[in-house]
């Protein structure tokens, strides 16, 4: 029985700790700061380097079906 209480206590302690950490992330806008200074520049760099299809190489077809009913 004691070990059950002990396990519950540990789980409760971890959850409380996690809750406090999340509140600190929220309060100091750490999510925003991490995204602004870390994630977004990294992703932006990735998107800027990405190879893309040249639109001017795409043929503009005018022989497609005319849908009239």
């Amino acid at each position, binding site marked *: 029985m004691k070990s059950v209480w002990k396990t519950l206590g540990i789980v409760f302690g971890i959850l409380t700790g996690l809750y406090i950490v999340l509140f600190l992330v929220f309060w100091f*806008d750490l999510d925003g700061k991490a995204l*602004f200074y870390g994630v977004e520049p990294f992703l932006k760099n990735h*998107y800027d380097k990405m190879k893309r299809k040249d639109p001017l190489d795409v043929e503009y077809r005018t022989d497609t079906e005319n849908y009239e*009913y």
Partner: protein
Amino acid sequence: MTKPNKTGKTLLTRTKKLASDFWNGKPHEERRLGDLYIDKTGLYKHREWRGVKDTMYYFNNIWLYNYAHMIGDMVKYSGPKGPMLFLKGVWRYRWLGQTYLPVMHWFDRGLEGMRGEGLRASAWHYRAMVSETIRQFMRMLEADQKTGGSKEIYDKTIAHDETVWGGIFYPWRDRMDDVPLQMIPYFVTCHVNNHVVLNYIDAAQSIGLPGDPCPMCQAEAGIFLQDDVPEYYPIVITSNEACDGSVGTSVLQDWMMNRPLFAMPQPMQFDDPLVQEHCAREIEECWKFIEEQTGEPFSWNELKKHLEQQNQLQEFEWEKWEVAANTDYYPINGVAQALYRIYQSQDGDREIWHEVDARVKKILEKCVEKKINSFPKTRHRMIAWSCAPLYYSHWCTWAYNCWGLNCIINMDSLMFNMTIRTDSYENTLQDMALYHEWAPMRRMAVGGMHHIFELWEYMEKFHCDMVMMYDQLQCKGMQGVHGLFEDEFRARNIHAIWMPHALPDKRTVSRSEIRGIINDYMTTIMHEEPLDPTLLEFDDSEGW
């Protein structure tokens, strides 16, 4: 009793004040919200203390709840593979990665300074928009042939321009789904992260197109030119996006899409009965096109079911307008009202709108019953008219916090002011044609003089004493009536603030310049003092 300090307050009084500020949050005039910003970034040194109850509500029921549901929704809409699918999408598409990660900051900007029931009701609107957005992009990603999506789902997904109303596809909702092409990659991204769209505007100009057409048209073309649209659809239904600049966009999109396309433009003079007839027949032709292309038959029962459900949404919207127009107890702020309404009315019947409306209805009824005023510092009731700056849709939150300008209603909310009859096929078709014709940018903005001048009628109905007149500098249609509005404002002795902007492009008129224009009007014309002077000037030029 302790001795009074320099301000004449005793220790006890100061302690009581500190305790009250901690428990209830500071009174509006003492909040100094502008001091919370980190210069240029729009980030917060720390988030706002709204009192114990509202801060904990924001943390638990908005911040934590929405982060958790953003992941939960991916699983809800796409199963356990949802989060992985999302990450693949983030890696492939700029509009997804740069926009949907900082979404909680979008909440922060729109809900700044809000308390109590107003905070709750407005946040629910945001929650619905996020959920519906996730549903749409998850469907795109599930079907996306560029990132290894399912061919089976691809075959059962129809794409359409964002101003083709989702209701057109109700007859197939039980077997197929429809996802607008630009609603998420363009429209929603501008609100959440205003940097993203600039890449697409520049992409359009990079192939030699002129820079002076509407930047919305440019951006929507640019997404295709950048090859940034998921390949999730075998057929597409387009419109003229109810703005004739967009016709050029459609040509570019057709070039890039290269697949069966049915064009269903919204006519200019929609009051003409012959035009109405033409539009009704065009909807029928569109249905035939879908049947022919997909092999799936039209279902009257599905259409009727969803139209009736959509009518329920409209009826609740009318209840909201009634409270907004005639009482001080409307708990929804200007940005939540505007974005939710245009999104929902264009998107059509979806489960999330009903869920959220049920929650908001309870809050609305509570506010009316207990006479709760969510905007007690209102000095002026504003109506916002014409098309809004997408990169600064939350200007109304700022304007209330800084000046007590309460944006009660806006033009886009009022566009689809109708329910649709379902008593006979012909009546349904006629009403659907009208709804389709009343598209964004057509219903009032470029729908004819007497429609754009419905402003006066709605101003009276909603008991507004000021107008925020949006001035889309690159909209040739609205620029044509600028002088007429000036004359009318003078003749009717109406206080109107012209807000210049370039729809999605913050480089033409920045948020800071917009605030400066409002500040100038409020000081030089209205001779008023700001409620929160820290909000008068700040630099958020690099902010999302």
